[in-house]
């Protein structure tokens, strides 16, 4: 490090960065700096402007105002090539990988110039070993686990000898063991003088890893702190801008009658890179919330579709609702019996983006809420139902005629969850209930699920977010390569134990992940 005497210039300094999108100011005069070798946290809720900001630093987006200083000198970052030339590397939240191509090709595509493929292959093996991120350059991306995909992104950055590494929500898709390993790598890099800009909303991680934190809310810097000193509650309140509401958790409950059961469910995936389900079984009692954990691509999509009725199975008795075999029934007959579903993908699966909120309510609730008796749509009843959802679930929308796509992710999710819950289901199956949803909306959704369970419904939650499952569920099991583990009570589950189940075989970390299904992990099951 040069200019030691009298305050070296920071590696990266932002001054007054402002970025406007139609109708919203994503970044409003944001400024902070990152020193050499510093691990700097950028903390904020979804929609606080973190991703926009780092895309500006990486040259993908351009700021409307403000300047970026690199080692004390103003620089213009017109595109990612220029950012990389300065020594800025970035690991994207939504990986910038190409599923049908090899690790080697993926890395070559992210380097400057036209690398010699043969020597590059050797360097990949070398660097990936040195940093504890083993990779085989010849494998195609769709055969890799999510953790391995992230390694590809990291190794791609490391090969360019970065001076600043940007990590955008890197741990949201990793098992606890993979997170530990990643932190090891990052600390090693920091010790070598590489600065790290670490974006997250997971406070504990930031306490564990980072030297300094800048907190963003609504596009503005609202605070800075030393996360080693500041309490997580304090940081959370800065981040949310309000007092954190405590959930009213339910107490221990007596063992109740089974309402929903799955027994020895076998299902061959119909997707090219899907995962087949193998003898999946679990039971959910009245008033119980049952969690299904696991890293994406381990059969979650297939399981959701089998539970909702989008895929039917020949053995009707493998899925039972209040004792009735329903495995051979489609979505609508199952819904008529009281099984409602919230799929993972909001836009395009749970809701039709271009249709109004009222129409989106009609699609799902038409029979249970009698919105279209004898085949004629009752506009009044549909509107009234949509308005009820908007009111009871505090959805921010202009009204029942707003298009679904005009709502923010969190609001649309509240609407969809509300739509299903207000149909008073006997069983609710819900995937990623709070994925990409801000903390306020997440708390509202969690509370609604608690209330539904309180009234005697059985709930199945499929989620990758372990913290969420531990908050919500009475018991949980882990889905791994299409097989469901034995259920454990969340009260006595340790994070480590669940993490090991997620990683694969009991007591083993997934050094070489098993090949999923016939061809590997789902390309259609992109990581959030």
């Amino acid at each position: 490090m040069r200019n030691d005497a009298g305050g070296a210039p920071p590696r990266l300094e932002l001054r007054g960065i402002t970025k406007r999108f139609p109708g919203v100011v994503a970044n409003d005069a944001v400024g902070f700096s990152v020193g050499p070798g510093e691990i700097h946290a950028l903390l904020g809720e979804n929609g606080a402007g973190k991703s926009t900001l780092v895309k500006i630093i990486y040259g993908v987006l351009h700021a409307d105002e403000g300047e970026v200083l690199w080692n004390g000198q103003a620089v213009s970052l017109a595109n990612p090539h220029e950012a990389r030339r300065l020594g800025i590397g970035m690991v994207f939240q939504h990986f910038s990988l190409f599923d049908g191509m090899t690790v080697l090709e993926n890395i070559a595509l992210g380097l400057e110039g036209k690398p010699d493929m043969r020597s590059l292959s050797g360097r990949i093996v070398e660097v990936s070993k040195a940093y504890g991120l083993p990779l085989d350059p010849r494998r195609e991306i769709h055969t890799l686990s999510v953790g391995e995909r992230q390694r590809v992104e990291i190794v791609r950055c490391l090969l360019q000898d970065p001076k600043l590494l940007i990590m955008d929500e890197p741990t949201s898709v990793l098992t606890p063991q993979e997170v530990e390993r990643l932190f090891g790598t990052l600390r090693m890099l920091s010790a070598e003088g590489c600065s790290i800009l670490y974006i997250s909303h997971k406070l504990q991680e930031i306490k564990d890893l980072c030297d300094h934190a800048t907190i963003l809310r609504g596009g503005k810097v609202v605070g800075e702190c030393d996360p080693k000193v500041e309490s997580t509650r304090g940081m959370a309140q800065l981040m949310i801008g309000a007092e954190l509401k405590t959930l009213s958790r339910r107490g221990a409950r007596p063992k109740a009658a089974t309402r929903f059961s799955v027994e020895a469910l076998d299902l061959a995936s119909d997707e090219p890179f899907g995962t087949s389900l193998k003898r999946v079984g679990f039971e959910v009692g009245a008033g119980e919330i049952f969690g299904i954990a696991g890293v994406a691509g381990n059969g979650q999509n297939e399981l959701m579709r089998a539970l909702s009725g989008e895929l039917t199975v020949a053995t009707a008795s493998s899925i039972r609702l209040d004792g009735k075999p329903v495995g051979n029934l489609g979505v609508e007959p199952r819904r008529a019996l009281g099984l409602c579903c919230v799929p993972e993908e909001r836009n395009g699966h749970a809701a039709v983006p271009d249709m109004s909120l009222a129409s989106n309510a009609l699609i799902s609730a038409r029979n249970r809420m009698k919105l279209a008796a004898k085949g004629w749509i009752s506009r009044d009843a549909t509107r009234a139902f949509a308005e009820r959802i908007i009111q009871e679930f505090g959805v921010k929308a202009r009204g029942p005629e707003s298009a679904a796509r005009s709502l923010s992710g969190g609001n649309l999710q509240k609407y969809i969850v509300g739509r299903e819950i207000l149909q008073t289901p006997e069983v609710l199956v819900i995937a990623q209930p709070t994925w990409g949803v801000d903390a306020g909306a997440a708390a509202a959704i969690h509370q609604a699920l608690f209330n539904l369970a309180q009234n005697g419904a059985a709930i199945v939650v499929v989620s990758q977010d372990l913290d969420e499952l531990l908050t919500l569920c009475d018991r949980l099991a882990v889905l791994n390569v299409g097989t469901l583990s034995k259920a454990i009570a969340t009260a006595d589950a340790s994070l480590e134990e669940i993490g090991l189940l997620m990683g694969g075989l009991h007591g083993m970390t997934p050094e070489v992940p098993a090949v999923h299904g016939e061809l590997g992990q789902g390309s259609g099951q992109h990581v959030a």
Partner: protein
Amino acid sequence: MMDFLVLITVSVVIAATPMLFAAVGELVVERSGVLNLGVEGMMLIGAVVGFGVTMTTGSAVLGIASAALAGAALALIFAVLVLTLMANQVATGLALTIFGIGLSALIGAGFVGMPIAALPKLFIPGVSDLPVIGPLLFQYDAMVYLSIALTVAVGWFLKSTHAGMVLRAVGESAESAHSIGHPVIRVRYLATLFGGALAGLGGAFLSLSVTPMWAENMTSGRGWIALALVVFGSWRPGRVLLGAYIFGGVTILQLHAQGSGGLGMGLPSQVFTMLPYLATIAVLTIISAGPWRGRFQAPACLGQPFRPSV
């Protein structure tokens, strides 16, 4: 008998070549993530421009080059509409075909029924007059060899060059390619123009070599078969080549069946005219259903518009 087989094989290769040109071009377009359904229209424009320029200038080379340029020009219209103005690719492609049919008929109105000399066959002393091998391999015109050379070149380009890798990446995930800093729109423009040029060449081969004349709508569906061939060949040049020759064979079978009164089966000749198209539908159905579906993966971004945010 040997002579007859040689004759059949040669006619199969010639019947296949227009589709091979167009299909290899479309393959490059689709690997970049763009679906251009206007192949038929671009072939027709190539056919009429190739014929017209050759006839008026007397230079086949000039005619062939103009045909490629004309195909590319029509592709440019498509590219501006779908890549810059974000029009729907399917609708625009269909419109391009209809436009090409009309425009080629207009340009070619004065050429109908005019005679022209077919492209000269290459003759290499020493090999071309070998028995069997000579007529089988060394007595085509230059464009047949060009079509094969282009297929090999495209295969090599996609597999072994950096630019080819970028093109595939753009078709796999435009979003990712953009975020790493590759010029998605520019790559797609170039691929679309290349595809247009090759469709134009395919058309020119039809009007200068297969049947040296111009007739309205003379491609009669070959552009659509070329589109099907890309899927049939699962977006790989080698398989597209194989597919083109199989479809060429079906076309020839149909011609012979018509001539010989339905191969003695007493079927109306229209049944045999349907053959290539039925084969197209059958092949498309078989590879898009069935357990091997996953092995015929289309480029992941095929047909999806991409608007970079800045």
